[in-house]
């Protein structure tokens, strides 16, 4: 194993092209350039604010809230992106300077350092996404550990209530906006182009931009803890009008969500275009792996719904900094408008957070049962069913909110009906298991664990979908239990399954199966220990988002807290397994799971441009057990074993 030292920046330049201009180290894209462009842009933003205030004759001219808002949350991040070089190619193009039509200078990773630079290779971006989001997962989980310590006993021990609310809000925000959603985007980034037989995403540079907006969002969420008054403390839902009256930390949420949202829209757009225009010959829609289908539907949800959360956060911010009255009733505003707009995004968002997982599970179950997926077409159709229904149920988060009464019944029925397409998926997975040859390796364990916990979460969803039950259970720990059964038992389990499943393909190395199994069992048991009692707490009367609660709930909360600490420890096992296996695990074959989809037909890790020649698709993706069946035919060396 030798590290390659060839300067790859020459890559893609044709003979006869002028050699790229040499630039000083402070001018080359990267952290050094970012380290001066970012402050420069901060200053620019600051002086825009100051100049405007001076012109308008407002006092004080140096208003730090506005300066931090504009300079710190808008221009400085743009400066950072510029410095890192995300926009370089476009700037050349814009200014009409010559550009190399397909410049692959920033394609492929040749050393671990390349993962810290702007890269346009979908595989590298996928891994960048996954590592970054895992960092935010640990950060969000760490906050949960902190407030679980506070909640272990009734009474106030470690934090005051504002800090507590801040911890809860930041926990959920990190988990949702910079862990679950982008982690799926990361997995899909790695897998989808390969599965489609495409050399890359449709817009590789946009892809890089999407990724680099993510750390900006995460950094804003985390930085809110430094704001005077503490982190945003209004929950991840950040309801108006409370949110427009909170200390300054709230703005970090408003703006962080914009960055995360922009990133997510850009990626979704990229997936849609890739899936529509770049499928390999023979890859009809009905031959696409279900992971691709899942990301196709998810991306549609993202493109259509995400602008609504952008809108909702703009309004809250305007109400705060420009004294508008979107949600101030005294001045003609309408408070519940916020919730409608917010949930019009955030309900579809919960399916954004689980459909890609459904895709992963379909891949894993089929491969490890050695059987075709049961009812492939209905599986794809049910995704579309969920997509359509997802837009007609948002008000189930508002059954007790005081909205128009007549809206409740249709919203309840459509919500309940989502159980049907979801049930189709669950039963099809079960039927795929039937008479299969189940290989119970780690990804499969997580897949099976996923089905059992997600069903509990889905059923508790059905409880709260029923208006009378929701009236009792809303805003209690019952909902918290639901959230974690669908998001942890659902999404996080699928992410683990996917990470283990594609780990050999991503890194070219195998993980430690024994540690993987230990991780699964520890997670599975302590997950249930942590979150199952919450159903009881909630129904019995414990509201959510409280730092202090009635003494009678003390014992159960202690159980929950202890469970959650062990659950946290199980994450450490996972991290250890991944890091060590990545560094020196046994070398993986190109197709350790004997899967049919295209990504497994190239070497592990795949070559820089995926294929020497675009594969020809000749059949369905899950033809296990069908004699002689093939999904795709690859020509030109790609099939050769890496270390044969």
């Amino acid at each position, binding site marked *: 194993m030798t590290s390659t030292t060839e300067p790859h920046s020459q890559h893609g330049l044709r003979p006869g092209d002028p050699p790229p201009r040499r630039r000083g180290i402070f001018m080359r894209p990267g952290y050094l350039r970012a380290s001066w462009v970012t402050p420069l842009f901060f200053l620019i933003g600051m002086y825009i604010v100051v100049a405007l205030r001076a012109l308008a004759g407002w006092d004080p001219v140096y208003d730090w809230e506005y300066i931090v808002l504009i300079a710190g949350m808008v221009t400085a991040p743009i400066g950072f992106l510029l410095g890192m070089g995300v926009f370089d190619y476009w700037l050349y193009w814009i200014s009409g300077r010559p550009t190399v039509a397909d410049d692959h200078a920033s394609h492929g990773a040749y050393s671990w350092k390349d993962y810290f630079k702007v890269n346009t290779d979908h595989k590298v971006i996928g891994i960048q996404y996954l590592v970054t989001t895992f960092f935010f997962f640990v950060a969000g989980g760490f906050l949960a550990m902190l407030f679980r310590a506070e909640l272990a006993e009734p009474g*106030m021990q470690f934090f005051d*209530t*504002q800090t507590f*609310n801040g911890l809860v809000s930041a926990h959920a925000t990190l988990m949702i906006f910079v862990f679950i959603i982008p982690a799926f985007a990361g997995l899909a980034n790695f897998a989808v182009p390969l599965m489609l037989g495409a050399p890359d995403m449709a817009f590789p540079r946009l892809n890089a931009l999407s990724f680099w907006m993510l750390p900006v969002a995460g950094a804003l969420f985390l930085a809110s803890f430094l704001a005077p*008054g503490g982190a945003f403390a209004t929950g991840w839902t950040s*309801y108006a*009008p409370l949110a427009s*009256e909170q*200390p300054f930390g709230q703005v970090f949420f408003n703006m962080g969500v914009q960055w995360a949202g922009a990133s997510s829209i850009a990626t979704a757009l990229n997936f849609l275009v890739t899936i529509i225009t770049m499928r390999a010959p023979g890859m009809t829609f009905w031959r696409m792996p279900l992971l691709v289908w899942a990301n196709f539907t998810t991306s549609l949800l993202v493109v259509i719904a995400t602008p609504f959360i952008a809108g909702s956060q703009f309004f809250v911010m305007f109400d705060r900094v420009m004294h508008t009255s979107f949600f101030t*009733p005294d001045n003609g505003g309408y*408070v519940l408008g916020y919730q409608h707009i917010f949930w019009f995004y955030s309900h579809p968002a919960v399916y954004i957070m689980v459909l890609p997982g459904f895709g992963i599970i379909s891949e894993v179950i089929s491969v490890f*049962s*050695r*059987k075709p997926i049961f009812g*492939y077409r*209905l599986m794809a159709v049910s995704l579309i069913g969920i997509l359509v229904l997802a837009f007609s149920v948002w008000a189930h988060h508002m059954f*007790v*909110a005081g909205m128009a009464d007549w809206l409740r*019944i249709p919203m*309840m*029925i459509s919500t*309940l009906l989502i*159980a*049907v397409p979801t*049930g*189709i998926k669950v039963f*099809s997975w*079960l*039927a795929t*298991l*039937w*008479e*299969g*040859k*189940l290989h*119970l390796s780690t990804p499969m364990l997580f897949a*099976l664990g996923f*089905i*059992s916990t997600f*069903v509990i979460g889905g059923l508790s969803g*059905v409880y709260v*979908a*029923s208006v*009378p*039950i929701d*009236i*009792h259970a809303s*805003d209690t720990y019952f909902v918290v239990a639901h959230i974690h059964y669908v998001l942890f038992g659902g999404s996080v389990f699928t992410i683990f399954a996917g990470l283990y499943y594609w780990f050999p393909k991503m890194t070219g190395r195998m993980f430690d199966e024994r540690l993987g199994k230990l991780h699964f069992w520890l997670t599975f048991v302590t997950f249930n220990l942590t979150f199952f009692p919450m159903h*009881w707490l909630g*129904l*019995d009367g414990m*509201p959510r*988002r409280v730092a202090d609660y*009635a003494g009678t709930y003390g014992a159960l909360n202690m159980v929950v807290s202890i469970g959650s600490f062990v659950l946290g420890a199980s994450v450490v096992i996972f991290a250890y397994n991944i890091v060590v296996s990545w560094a020196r695990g046994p070398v993986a074959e190109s197709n350790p799971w*004997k899967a049919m989809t295209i990504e497994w037909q190239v070497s592990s890790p795949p070559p820089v441009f995926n294929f020497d020649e675009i594969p020809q698709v000749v059949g369905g993706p899950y*033809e*296990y*057990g*069908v004699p002689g*069946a093939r999904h795709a035919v690859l020509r030109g060396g790609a099939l050769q074993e890496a270390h044969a």
Partner: protein
Amino acid sequence: MIRVTVIAVLAAIVTTLVAVLIRWLPESASEQMDRITFTYWFATVISIAIFSIVIGLIVYSVWAFRVQPEDDTDGPPIHGNTKLEIAWTIVPALLVISIGLVSAVVISKNANAGSDPLEVKVFAQQFAWKFEYPGEVRSDELVMPLRRPVEFHMESADVIHSLWIPQMGQKQDVVPGVTTKIVITPTRTGTFTLICTELCGLGHATMRAPVRVLEQPEFASWLAKQRAAGAGAAGGAASGGTGGGTQAGGAASALGKQTFASAGCGGCHAFEPAGTDAQIGPGLDNLVADAKKAGEPEDAYIEQSIVEPNAVVVAGYQPGVMPQTFGETLSPEELDALVAFLSGK
């Protein structure tokens, strides 16, 4: 197939035990909660069935179809089965629709206040509840008559709050700018706690109010007593502190103390005379010194601190934390009494 059924039945038995042996819902104290409990059990029966089938299939598959070592053949290439697929589309659809129908009936019954409800106005603000009975009787405690529907008309002065009495099931947000309603018909006497279940800021966790359900005659006499007390008190201001209507037309300091409790000041401030020890805002036992620091007369300073909390912000605290609505929600009498109470007069 038989084995699967056995496993599924076992799973069903275990889940049923979990469902019955644990007292999941609090003991019902209202007609509405009775119906909610019914809906809950209806959904539970369906859920147990679904869950048992799913778990039964997973456990059986793992047990029966687990691959033998050295076996690297594939399973049978079954691609689907239209009849099965139709079945598992239709049956869940019917089941959830039945849940929907039951729920719809329950909602409409639960929203029905009957012909002669008792109307109670609810005022929520950070972080206190106030109730007003017909005849302008104000109270900090919610008192309800047994078996008579009580219709709540709820308003909020600042942000969204939510009213919930766990044993009575019903829950409704209180939204600024909108008057929301719910109906509760208590079915047993006793004391309960009303809690705020919508995150409303710092004091959300402590925003509670005591609730008592009385026999109808007792309720009537309570109401009459409150009415008399209210008429006696200066300006018809709030009466009937948390103790439940103790004194009538008391001295200003009594009104001050009451207001301190009812306006929720104790949720944030420690103040010896009121016996509170919260730490969100500064302690109020040394206000004289603070007023000096601000260079203002004591009373004016206190009044300003209540009406316009952001005018002078105590070192180490944040502006915008203390609600800025007290100027509107407190009557002039209450304000004066509060200032007097705080300045120790």
